[in-house]
């Protein structure tokens, strides 16, 4: 196996653990590359096509390298009602990228997610798992500027 993925040894090579294995790859690499798929196929003893079939079924898995700061804009019902479409448009306007894209400097990537479960704080987004709530244009710009300054 490609030695870069030797950490797959942490997961028992049972087929039921395939998703867990892919999650491990994504946690380590930030995404699942072609090499990652081949390594998983070898580890679990199933065809690469089947691995990719499973992988592409689930929204969690990324096939391209995300930015240093991963923005997840929530578009759950409560957030939608509270204007997440605007939030999403403003994020795009501020960063110049669309859903699933990464900024040229590799700093930011954005995705729209169904629900972060913080409905009472709607509208919300999360950056690398940290949730920011009750967003408006001003607070959004402030948050993004903080991350831009951090670099």
């Amino acid at each position, binding site marked *: 196996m490609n030695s870069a993925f030797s950490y797959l040894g942490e997961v028992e090579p049972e087929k039921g*653990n395939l998703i867990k294995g892919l999650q491990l790859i994504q946690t380590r690499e930030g995404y699942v590359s072609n090499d990652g798929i081949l390594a998983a196929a070898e580890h679990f003893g199933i065809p690469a096509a089947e691995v990719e079939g499973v992988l592409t079924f689930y929204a969690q898995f990324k096939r391209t390298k995300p930015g240093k700061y991963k923005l997840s804009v929530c578009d759950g019902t409560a957030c939608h*009602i509270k204007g997440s479409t605007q939030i999403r448009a403003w994020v795009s306007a501020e960063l110049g990228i669309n859903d699933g894209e990464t900024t040229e400097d590799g700093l930011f990537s954005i995705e729209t997610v169904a629900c972060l479960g913080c*409905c009472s704080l709607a509208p919300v987004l999360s950056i690398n798992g940290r949730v920011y709530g009750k967003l408006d244009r001003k607070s959004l710009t402030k948050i993004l500027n903080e991350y831009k300054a951090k670099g």
Partner: protein
Amino acid sequence: MADIKRIKVGTASCGLAAGAGAVLEALRKQAGSIPVDEAGCMGHCYAEPIVELELTDGTSVFYARVKGTDEAAAAILAQSEEGRFVFPEKRSKLEKLLVTRLAGRINPVSLDEYKANGGFSALEKVFAMTPEQVVDAVKASGLRGRGGAGFPTGMKWSFLAAKKVPDKVQICNADEGDPGAFMDRSMMESVPYQVLEGMLIGAYATGATRLFIYCRAEYPLAIKHLTIAIEEMKKAGLNKLPNREAPLEITIKEGAGAFVCGEETAMIHSLEGKRGTPRFRPPFPTDSGWNTLPTAINNVETFANIPIIFQIGAEAYAAIGTEKSKGTKIFALAGDVKTPGLVEVPMGITLGEIVYDIGGAEPGTVKAVQTGGPSGGCIPASEFGVKIDYDSLGKLGAIMGSGGLIVIGNNRCMVETARYFLNFTRRESCGKCTFCRVGTTRMYEALERITSGKGSMDDIAFLEDIAPKIKKGALCGLGQTAPNPALSTLRYFKNEYLAHVQDHVCEALACPALVDVAIDPAKCIKCKLCVKTCPVGAIDPANNFSVDNAKCTKCNSCIEVCPKKAVSRVRKQSANA
């Protein structure tokens, strides 16, 4: 003034998002020898971050919307009168805290604290009964599945118990995928032991040997707390059943972001490491489930109810609620209400009581609630007198669902709401069966045409024609319920559909294609903030601050930034002309 015995900070996900982390830190810096503990969620999300002071005289003082500063921490430690939080009386009267009794009141990961508050007492009682008696008690309690469909839990357990094979599977469905629902997250974060105690009772009653929790990966704190709780129980020997030699293993499996995996056969496929597509039933999972073993799947809230049934007794439990829906229900109340949060109410409470008395919405400002997420429907304000249970909501074209309850204010567009849900189900459709894959997409396209002002009466007729066919023809629960948001809005808010199609008017001014942005010259002070903030240069200060609506993307930036509220959305002029 009594001394402070202990300080608790609500640090479930919504508390943390509101800034509880900084509050915890600030308090710990100054608290000296007073313990500062993390607690879960009390359900009053609007008041987060919440701090509770346990006093030596046995009473408690609460503070709401606490800031994470040294000054705020000092004021709380001095038991300042300012910022004290009193639980709203109206809400306290209507709520019945059974299942969430301990949520937010104890340290979620402390086994000792759970035990000190009656935890695992139900398990002890159960061990003195035979498995058959346990199943019968759950049947007698009248508990129905809290995941949404409302299947009687005791009956499901009896199916699994009847299988005389050595290996059986029990799965806890924690794949809370409905946008707008967070009951299960909160239970797992705040009282993980209660959920696990319910699972142990289930395993004892049904003879299940393999236990899984299928939790969505978006809930890292829930997974963390469950993992710690499982470890602690193992250490304390609580994973052993009296009728079993081998200790029970409870395995947490993380979902990977697929809504359809909340459907039981899809979840089983996912647990087997496959694509999460559902399959035709029968065979039902209790006959052939995970790796063909008999399998029963119950929801998080269902399991959290189980210990309560044995604590208070099945009869007392069955005395709560309506004739066919027993016990309480936890609702995630959000949307256009003043005080959103997690509320636990007895079945049979009215929708109006939840929206107006608990949520604090002003009567007249709300036009509907949406229950059951993408599988549910909208119920108009005129029906808010309905007593909530599984059957009454079904009659209104909605469903109980898992407990998401989104309040929709007068300024929201119902057609847009339906479009939103169909966009969700269309994307989450697994693609296996045609009715769902193609049907939801066609419905979405029709709704998209209507909300963008290009719809016709044919689109409305098409929606009414195809929706029942999808419900009938789809393979699984996702497809069978996907048309509900459109059907229920067509039933109660057809006038809005007609206004979009015939008059090209969106009364709520929500659909961008049907609105203009205008600046009121009487209010405008010519500060040019709007000009500076407009991303497309649609506002011309030289031309009396007129808005070029062909350029304008209706992003609302100018409306938000205007200090005089001179900018607003208005009905599209060209359409009226």
